[in-house]
């Protein structure tokens, strides 16, 4: 049984209960949901919580052009100077409140999040509000060995719609902190949310958990791009509690040398007549490790569900590793569900074909990469962002 190490004096959080922190233990290898993770690198660090805002300019960060409204959270602390949110916005309410985690604590990191988060970011749409401008949340860590906890609550009121773009990054490559993020999302009747998440925290560790509740006739799409991270764990849990919902989870993950990206998703269909689509693609570079574990549950009374799940992986080198585990648990009898998983390498014949037309080995590999991920890439509707991840992370 083990825990992370903290430099306790460095944390200045109201009512922080060290007793709760100390009582919680890191998940063990024997726990199915955490079996692939190794904590060795994390346990070597003595994390601190002495945070300030250091950034003075967003241009210093690797970011695409950001349209709409931007909230900058630096080391878990709201950076007022760099954020761009009008004081009054039709249909939208922002607030920062004392932590009120809505996520049921069922792991070590949930407990830590509850203990360490100072303030939660709350975003609420007003009923019937169609928010045209996207909201960007830039979560940046600028402090080495820092332990950052953040918490976002999203409420989409009836018949409203919103696009949220989240960026997780480090200000430079030497930083080795840990960010522990939670997001609770409530999507009311007929509301629509698109969440685009871009993770490229370099040498940081990141734990990320989304808990989503969908009411009837609602629409939820998450597009997840995970490019790097020494250890990245993404948990997505969607509960579809109303009829006629649309749920879509798309992902690209590209761990490279000594990086580990672990995706665990759960879609729980608790109501009939819904559709869900899940499609994750892993491009595993030399010495990288990827995990896809996707579970779809169709509950007993959730008839006429259509649920499709797919995970395809390309191992770029002989020493690339992926663990893929698609799971379906169906208790209803009138459903249409499928799942599939493939793992392979780039097709030699395709590579030869492209090269025989004069494309260099590198250019040919880029084309095959593009061919592999384009289906998911197309889900990122913002062309600037798409171009950014393409140029910065996929074709290099």
């Amino acid at each position: 049984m083990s825990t992370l190490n903290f430099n306790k004096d460095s944390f200045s959080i109201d009512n922080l209960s060290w007793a709760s922190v100390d009582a919680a233990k890191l998940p063990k290898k024997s726990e199915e949901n955490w079996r692939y993770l190794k904590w060795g690198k994390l346990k070597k660090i003595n994390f601190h919580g002495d945070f300030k805002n250091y950034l003075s300019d967003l241009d210093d960060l690797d970011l695409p052009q950001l349209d709409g409204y931007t909230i900058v959270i630096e080391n878990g602390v709201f950076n007022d100077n760099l954020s761009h949110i009008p004081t009054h916005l039709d249909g939208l309410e922002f607030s920062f409140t004392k932590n009120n985690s809505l996520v049921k604590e069922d792991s070590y990191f949930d407990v830590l999040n509850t203990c360490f988060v100072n303030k939660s970011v709350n975003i609420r749409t007003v009923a019937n509000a169609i928010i045209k401008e996207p909201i960007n949340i830039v979560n940046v860590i600028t402090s080495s060995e820092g332990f950052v906890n953040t918490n976002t609550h999203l409420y989409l009121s009836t018949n409203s719609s919103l696009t949220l773009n989240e960026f997780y990054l480090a200000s430079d490559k030497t930083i080795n902190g840990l960010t522990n993020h939670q997001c609770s999302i409530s999507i009311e009747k007929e509301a629509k949310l698109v969440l685009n998440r871009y993770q490229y925290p370099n040498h940081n560790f990141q734990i990320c958990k989304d808990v989503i509740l969908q009411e009837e006739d609602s629409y939820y799409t998450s597009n997840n791009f995970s490019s790097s991270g020494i250890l990245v764990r993404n948990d997505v849990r969607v509960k579809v509690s109303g009829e006629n919902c649309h749920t879509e989870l798309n992902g690209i993950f590209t761990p490279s040398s000594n990086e580990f990206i672990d995706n665990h998703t759960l879609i729980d269909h608790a109501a009939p007549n819904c559709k869900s689509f899940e499609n994750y693609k892993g491009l595993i570079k030399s010495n990288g490790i990827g995990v896809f574990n996707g579970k779809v549950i169709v509950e007993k009374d959730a008839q006429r569900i259509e649920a499709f799940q797919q995970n395809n992986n390309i191992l770029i080198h002989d020493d690339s590793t992926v663990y893929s585990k698609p799971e379906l648990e169906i208790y209803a009898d009138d459903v249409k569900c499928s799942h599939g998983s493939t793992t392979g390498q780039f097709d030699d014949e395709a590579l030869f074909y492209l090269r025989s037309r004069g494309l260099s080995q590198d250019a040919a590999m880029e084309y095959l990469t593009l061919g592999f991920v384009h289906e998911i890439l197309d889900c990122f509707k913002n062309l600037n962002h798409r171009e950014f991840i393409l140029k910065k992370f996929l074709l290099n």
Partner: protein
Amino acid sequence: MDTVLKIENLHCQVQGQQILKGLNLEIKRGEVHAIMGPNGSGKSTLSSVLAGKEDYEITAGQILYQNEDIGELSPEERSWKGMFLAFQYPVEIPGVSNINFLRTALNERNKALGRDQISAKDFLRLVSEKSSLVGLDNKLKNRSVNEGFSGGEKKRNEIFQMAMLEPTLSILDETDSGLDIDALKIVSNGVNTLKSEDNATIVITHYQRLLDYIVPDFVHVLYDGKIVKSGDKSLALDLEERGYDWLKLEKAL
């Protein structure tokens, strides 16, 4: 007339298996050579080793292209020097438009040869000129490379790409396979139009039918990794009539 390709005593093995066993061939500018032979005789191996496919190991002999031994060159280097292989089974590349792919191909070559990049205007003019040669539908130009193309469309696309790249030596590997008679005429017509005094063509085929449309100057019979017989176009007709079985007999004797 100068020699474009000279293959001398070529021995080639694939995954430890000897496929080509002393093949000789000389091709000059302006010529069309047909290589025929039964299944398993080494026809596709020949096209792959000429285009530089990995895993095709030359164990003896050499391939001279414009007097240069190209045995160690990569597929792209051979392409830059003006070689082109039209695939028997063109590969589908999803997510990459045909047009972008060709522009990249041209520009990669221009870069390698130290030439300027092609301008958008010149490129589009070239596309419209060359695609009309094989009647390639506009839609297909913008679709992903070969994705969802019919067999005939894929082969037309191969000839379109060949026209765009203007090779000195074209190798058509079983271009007739999977083509109906109308598509065969269109594809052949494209090849014939591209033929000139400066370039040369190798047509690899199992059947004589294609040679009614692309008329060869020479016909070679490949059998068990060697060219066992050469002649003019009448040899193809002869083969059509007699099949390939007599080769086995002749070898046995």
